[in-house]
């Protein structure tokens, strides 16, 4: 009966300009300065490690992803970049590649692809690498003489232990916790990134800029990083004041993976709560657990396990933080079955 070419669709007939693909790629763009800084600080090795991890992720998504076009949504790219940024510069490339593949396959695709996963896939990849290659992932080579010299043993053959013939250096966190002569790294070094550490662990400033850009675009829920910082600062400040911990609260915020984790890992929309109230619970848990692991745990760093643990709790947080229905006091309406 239609005598025009018009299309009949359901309302609303207009849509916001935002799209999932735009969100994903803007995250990628905001990471560019962080990646550039890691190359500036660590040389070509940084680029190689990131490329290997990205390659692992993209290839796995291409081979096993649920839809053929799923590479274009940018989510596999983000996982690859983020995983790469959590690795030390001298990390063997085959391990980075394997970690990316594992993270994608077992962190995401096995759950059903984009939007279905429980855990942050980049952190699943890193947790796997931490368990499989505990030495390689905690070896931070000392600064090389020339910028272009490759660090560590990037080209170690698969299943061969990497040979580290250069001197190793300690990260600010490792130094303070396990060092023979513990010192608190000056805040300026932490802020601008002139310290040892994993690729994306060093420059708080650039991560802050990228994170603020995303928050301004509405592509990142700022409640999450803020709640993490508030809780980590408060909890570590309390322990520091009581003399239980040797970590000053500001050092806690700007060292290790705290910045990258708070702005880029914890804010993964798929694996974080849906309400702002839930995001505060989630962020508080991450901050608290990170401080506890850093002070009492067997590892120098606790951001990764804190986020993964809180990821697992997200369904419960969502249930506990449902919005209050308009025109009600907030208590759930009693079901008819209960009354019967």
């Amino acid at each position, binding site marked *: *009966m*239609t*005598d*025009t*070419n*018009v*299309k*009949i*669709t*359901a*309302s*609303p*007939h*207009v*849509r*916001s300009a*935002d*799209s*999932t*693909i*735009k*969100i994903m790629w803007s995250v990628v763009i905001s990471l560019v300065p962080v990646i550039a800084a890691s190359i500036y600080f660590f040389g070509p090795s940084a680029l190689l490690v990131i490329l290997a991890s990205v390659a692992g992720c993209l290839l796995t998504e291409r081979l096993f992803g649920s839809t053929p076009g799923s590479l274009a*949504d940018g989510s596999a790219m983000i996982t690859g970049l983020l995983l790469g940024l959590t690795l030390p510069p001298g990390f063997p490339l085959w391990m980075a590649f394997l970690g990316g593949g594992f993270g994608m396959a077992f962190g995401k695709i096995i759950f059903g*692809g*984009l*939007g*279905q996963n429980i855990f942050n896939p980049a952190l699943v990849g890193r947790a796997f690498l931490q368990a499989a290659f505990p030495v390689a992932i905690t070896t931070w080579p000392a600064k090389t003489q020339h910028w272009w010299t490759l660090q560590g043993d990037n080209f170690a053959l698969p299943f061969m232990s990497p040979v580290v013939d250069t001197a190793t250096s300690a990260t600010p966190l490792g130094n303070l916790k396990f060092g023979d002569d513990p010192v608190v790294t000056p805040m300026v070094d932490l802020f601008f990134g002139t310290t040892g550490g994993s690729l994306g662990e060093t420059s708080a400033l650039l991560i802050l800029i990228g994170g603020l850009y995303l928050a301004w675009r*509405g592509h990142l*829920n700022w409640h999450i990083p803020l709640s993490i910082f508030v809780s980590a600062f408060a909890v570590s400040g309390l322990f520091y004041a009581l003399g239980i911990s040797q970590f000053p609260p500001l050092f806690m915020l700007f060292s290790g993976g705290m910045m990258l984790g708070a702005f880029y890992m914890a804010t993964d*929309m*798929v694996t*974080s*709560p*849906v*309400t*702002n109230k839930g995001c505060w619970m989630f962020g508080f848990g991450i901050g608290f657990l990170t401080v506890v692991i850093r002070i009492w745990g067997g590892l120098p760093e606790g951001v990764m396990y804190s986020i993964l643990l809180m990821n697992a709790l997200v369904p419960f947080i969502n249930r506990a933080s*449902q*919005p*209050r*229905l*308009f*025109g*009600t006091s907030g208590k759930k*309406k009693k*079901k*008819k*079955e209960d009354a019967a």
Partner: protein
Amino acid sequence: MKELLSFKHGVHPPENKDITSGIASKRFPFPKEVILPLSQHIGSPAKALVKPGDRVERGDVIAEAAGFISSTVHATAAGSVKSIELWPHPNGTMVPSIRIAVDPSSSQMRRTRMVPRWQDVKEEDLSKEIAKAGIVGLGGAAFPSHVKLCPPKDQPVELLLINGCECEPYLTSDHRVMLEQPEMVYEGIRIALKALGITRCVIGIEANKPDAIEMMRKTKPDDIDVTIQPLKVKYPQGAEKMLIKAVMGREVPSGALPSAIGAMVQNVATAANVAAVFQTGHPLIERIITVTGRGIRKPGNWKIPFGTKLRDVIEHCGGLTEDAEEIVFGGPMMGQGQGNLDVPVLKATGGILILSKEECKRQDIMPCIRCGKCLEACPVFLNPQLMGALAKAERYEELVSDANLNDCMLCGSCSFVCPSNIPLSQWFAMSKTQLRRLPAS
């Protein structure tokens, strides 16, 4: 500057009101034929009083209300009844409708009906006169006005809220009513206040219509207690519950009507038409309709007789552009898509929106990434993310019991913000339909 009053959450779709807001409303020429469905809106269908061949004058009653929540149908043009047959309705169904061949030689003078001065009518009889004139709410749902003017005795109304928000993008018909007939709006307010037996009234107008706010302030009479309240520009500010929240600061209880907290909301155009009933005796047979969008060549505001076919409106407005993509009755957020150009314009049609390809770009549906933007948009604090999952799984009963589907007013805010283009409000509308079909357990 103090923050303007509003409600929590909501969305900011591009307004696009400047296409027609400056164009004065003009009378639309009478078409060759008008189609008047016996069921135009919420409530029982009316009963036809004419048969094929009958001569009718403009304004004659041709079908009478059947039941309390029902509304009288009037001839919107003089002519002869051609037939009573099933005809496509804007809601997508076929509805028994009276077809009138318009008499081209008629002067189209409205038959004068004797009406008393409203000042002389008893409070309880005012709503009867309004019912006789076939007045319905012109805000969108077209709920018969006389029903609203008789609130339940145990819930007395204390405040009359006049809705001049017009929060739907593109539409400017209410805007034009406020600019062109402010004294009629005030007269309608006087009548409504008398019918309700109250004295206080607030007119809520979104701040994107400063000329309307200015006009209403300038023409404000001294004999009634009325406040003009500019409101923040945010969709859906014009929804009853949102307007009440913004002005009174109170929430209408879930599942209840505004009268539960002593409020009554009436649209500005409805108020102006109520006044017209008592001034001229004329029933509701036409209204200002915005014809707009980048898909129509000559947009404007027109006083169109009900029953005019969509085809005639498009033709008179210069026709569709090359890239016209969608035709919508109503606004872009809640309006109904039309595919058949024979459907008639009805009382509930506040606008005819013709969107170009550029304006309604459709994108592929992506998986939900649980970003939570829909929860931040929902004006009644539902969880559209969870509701979407339940609707997709066809778990309709749980949608009602666990996710409060009945509180959803299908405003479309969740669908609008969804970055994955998930048609949430469409799913919710479908779920509501499915639930009506299910046998009550």
